[in-house]
């Protein structure tokens, strides 16, 4: 027999003014199953909670209804009080007679009548409540970091230095990401490689970090604390254990005319190559698409010259499987492809800037390689077409960004700063040259950022022109940049034409190719541009909606280096927090399958956003398959109940919001 206690709170005057609390208590005392009903000024106060605890013990209550504020406010308080008195906390429910009643209704008779009904609803529900117990999930203390750019490196190092194991997966042959390509970094102009490469070395040497380069995440299953991750190690054609990184193979490789990805096509590399001199690991891979041996069967020079016999043409992709407790996604960005356009995303190329047919129209990363001491020109700013130092360089901002009509509506954020830096570096190297910058706005919000832009203008003499460029065309060996200066009036309407030797386009920052497929593997969301979605834009910026998966860096949205590093450290802190205990505790509001009734239609599987429905085979004693039925993985289930409403054989129920409970609640409104 149910023995329910009802506790009506006055909340001082908040409820008591419009709801006749003694009357509600008197009515509730007459409801079937209610053995105790009282009202009190402040139920959440110590004496109020004491009344509940005493009643649980003295009246041997099997359930408690507290009629007070919203359960979103004080449900944990009252459930804790019940637990302290020895009653399972999930046998306590709240009737919301403040936010949903006394505060929104004026007439005392109506409000009191409604409060009585709301209490009856919860009495009917709590009679059907069952004791529930927090779900305990074991935690595998090993993190996976996807992406070895600066964000991934920072997250991996922070987790590893916190004493936990990390598996770092990078798809390129070396870690380092875009930061390794940069010349100098704003706003301090310190050399990018000088600050990055020590961290790359630290990653490789760290006893807590397992590094897989030239590798990709193949599949992910499981849930927070218990992911199973399969990693594809792409065939390097080089035995990484034997290879000493001497570099003889690349020196002797006859195929030397392959545009280098690292140098953004401005330099050449061989078919067997390490992307750059400071690569980590400093072990080459063979680019099979360009290798003569793989294309024609003839050659084999690298194998002949390798002193340790590390070159292995027969090598195949292999797989490693790792048990993982938490995942940090740090796949970074790429630049918008202004040459070819991105028709798949509905973005045309920039025809007015020549669709990339002019060799001397380059993008920001290409300029970085020109300015870098390790770049194809050794750090000299030279035109790609004829190798001459450009006398006039035009920088154009917002190419693809902030362009609702034919580009992307968002601001790529880093361009204002790097273009100021480019103009500065150019002036430092070509003293007599002129740098023009076409801009829409200057967005330099950041520590020492505005000062930096001002330095480019005031000290280094970059000429900033507020306006857009409408067209670039050639005249002789010059690029004619035609645009508008919107700060100039007059008869010409502000039209300007600049005879330039080189043009640098600040193209939009985009998430990496393949981000959608990765997001689907991980069951995490992404926005219309492919940037991964955080759990809350302000208060949970490093978490995703899938528990145990975190975000770091530009995969989540455009970011500069300090922001990416900050978010990476934030993600690492979340991972370390998760790994601080051996078990996770979760609220036991999860779905449950009545397997004897399940018909195995698996509609539930289709509506579950968390992949929490598993298929279980039922066999008889002889081992014959009798049925395939659904099973809920309580670790993955978040308790939304979509499966319950979808189940056509009524075989799934949701603990805490069961069929019986909800129908009884509706019945309470008779």
């Amino acid at each position, binding site marked *: 027999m149910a023995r329910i206690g009802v506790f009506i709170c006055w909340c001082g005057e908040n409820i008591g003014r419009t709801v006749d609390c003694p009357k509600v208590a008197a009515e509730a005392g007459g409801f079937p199953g209610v053995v105790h009903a009282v009202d009190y000024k402040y139920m959440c106060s110590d004496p109020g909670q004491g009344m509940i605890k005493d009643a649980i013990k003295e009246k041997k209550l099997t359930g408690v209804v507290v009629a007070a504020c919203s359960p979103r406010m004080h449900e944990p308080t009252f459930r804790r009080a019940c637990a302290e008195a020895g009653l399972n906390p999930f046998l306590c429910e709240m009737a919301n007679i403040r*936010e949903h009643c006394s505060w929104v209704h004026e007439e005392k008779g109506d409000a009191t009548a409604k409060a009585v009904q709301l209490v009856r609803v919860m009495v009917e529900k709590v009679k059907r409540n069952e004791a529930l117990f927090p779900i305990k999930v074991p935690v595998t203390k090993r993190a996976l970091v996807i992406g070895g750019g600066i964000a991934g490196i920072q997250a991996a190092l922070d987790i590893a230095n916190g004493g936990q194991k990390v598996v770092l997966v990078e798809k390129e042959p070396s870690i380092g990401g875009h930061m390794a390509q940069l010349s100098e970094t704003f706003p301090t102009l310190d050399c990018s490689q000088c600050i990055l490469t020590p961290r790359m070395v630290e990653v490789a040497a760290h006893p807590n970090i397992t590094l897989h380069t030239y590798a990709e995440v193949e599949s992910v299953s499981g849930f927070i604390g218990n992911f199973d991750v399969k990693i594809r190690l792409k065939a390097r054609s080089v035995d990484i254990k034997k290879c000493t990184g001497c570099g003889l193979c690349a020196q002797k490789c006859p195929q030397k005319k392959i545009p280098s990805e690292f140098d953004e096509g401005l330099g050449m590399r061989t078919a067997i190559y390490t992307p750059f001199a400071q690569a980590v690991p400093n072990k080459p891979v063979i680019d099979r698409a360009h290798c003569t041996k793989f294309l024609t069967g003839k050659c084999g020079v690298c194998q002949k010259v390798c002193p340790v016999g590390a070159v292995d043409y027969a090598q195949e992709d292999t797989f490693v499987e790792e048990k993982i407790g938490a995942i940090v996604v740090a796949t970074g960005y790429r630049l918008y492809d202004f040459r070819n356009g991105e028709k798949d995303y509905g973005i045309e190329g920039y025809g007015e800037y020549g669709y990339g047919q002019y060799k001397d129209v380059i993008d920001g990363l290409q300029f970085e390689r020109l300015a870098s001491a390790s770049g194809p020109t050794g750090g000299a700013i030279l035109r790609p077409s004829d190798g001459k130092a450009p006398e006039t360089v035009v920088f154009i901002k917002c190419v693809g960004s902030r362009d609702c009509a034919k580009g992307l509506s968002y601001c790529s954020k880093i361009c204002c700063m790097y273009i100021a830096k480019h103009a500065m570096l150019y002036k430092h190297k070509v003293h007599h040259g002129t740098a023009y910058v076409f801009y829409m706005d200057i967005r330099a919000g950041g520590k020492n950022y505005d000062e930096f832009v001002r330095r480019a203008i005031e000290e280094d003499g970059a000429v900033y022109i507020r306006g857009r460029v409408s067209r670039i065309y050639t005249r002789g060996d010059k690029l004619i940049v035609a645009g508008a200066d919107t700060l100039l009036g007059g008869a010409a309407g502000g039209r300007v034409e600049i005879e330039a030797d080189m043009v640098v386009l600040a193209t939009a920052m985009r998430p990496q190719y393949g981000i959608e497929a990765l997001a689907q593997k991980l069951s995490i969301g992404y926005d219309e541009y492919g940037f991964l979605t955080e759990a809350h834009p302000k208060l949970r910026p490093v978490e995703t909606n899938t528990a145990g998966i975190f975000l770091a860096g530009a995969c989540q949205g455009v970011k500069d280096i300090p922001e990416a590093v900050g978010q990476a450290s934030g993600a690492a802190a979340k991972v370390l927090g998760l790994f601080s205990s051996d078990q996770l505790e979760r609220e036991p509001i999860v779905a449950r399958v009545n397997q004897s009734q399940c018909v195995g239609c698996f509609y539930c599987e289709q509506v579950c956003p968390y992949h929490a429905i598993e298929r279980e085979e039922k066999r008889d004693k002889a081992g014959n398959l009798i049925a395939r039925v659904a099973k809920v993985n309580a670790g993955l289930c978040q308790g*939304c109940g979509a499966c319950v409403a979808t189940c056509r054989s009524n075989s799934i129920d949701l603990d805490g919001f069961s069929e019986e409970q909800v129908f009884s609640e509706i019945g309470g409104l008779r």
Partner: protein
Amino acid sequence: METTTAEFEPKIIAFLCNWCTYAGADLAGTSRLKYPANIRAIRLTCTGRIEPMFLLKAFQEGADAVLVSGCHPGDCHYTSGNYHARRRWTVFRKLLEFSGIDPRRVLFSWVSAAEGRKWSELVAEITAQVRALGPFTSFERIVKA
């Protein structure tokens, strides 16, 4: 038993998701926005949890209208529950209509946790609408028959 619509006070049962509309109704309360006392809310995890049977049960228990309200499209706490709910109601309303139940008695809306005012206005509006429709008696006739 005939009641004139002037003095008729309808009973409206609302099924609300915990994360958006229930919280929006809480906000209406903390903002002290007044609305008619005809509505009774039942809190559920998600609109995706709500079954057509809940609505029929509500009518059976004498509701003059039912309201289902959850997160705006794209805002579901559980990613997609509100989409499942929307599809379900599109079909279910047709079935109700076919069965002779006035679809104006089955209401659907999106109210976010920030839309306390929208909630109070919605309740006032639908209470007036249902009051004009008059009491829902056809279900009683079916139950008795």
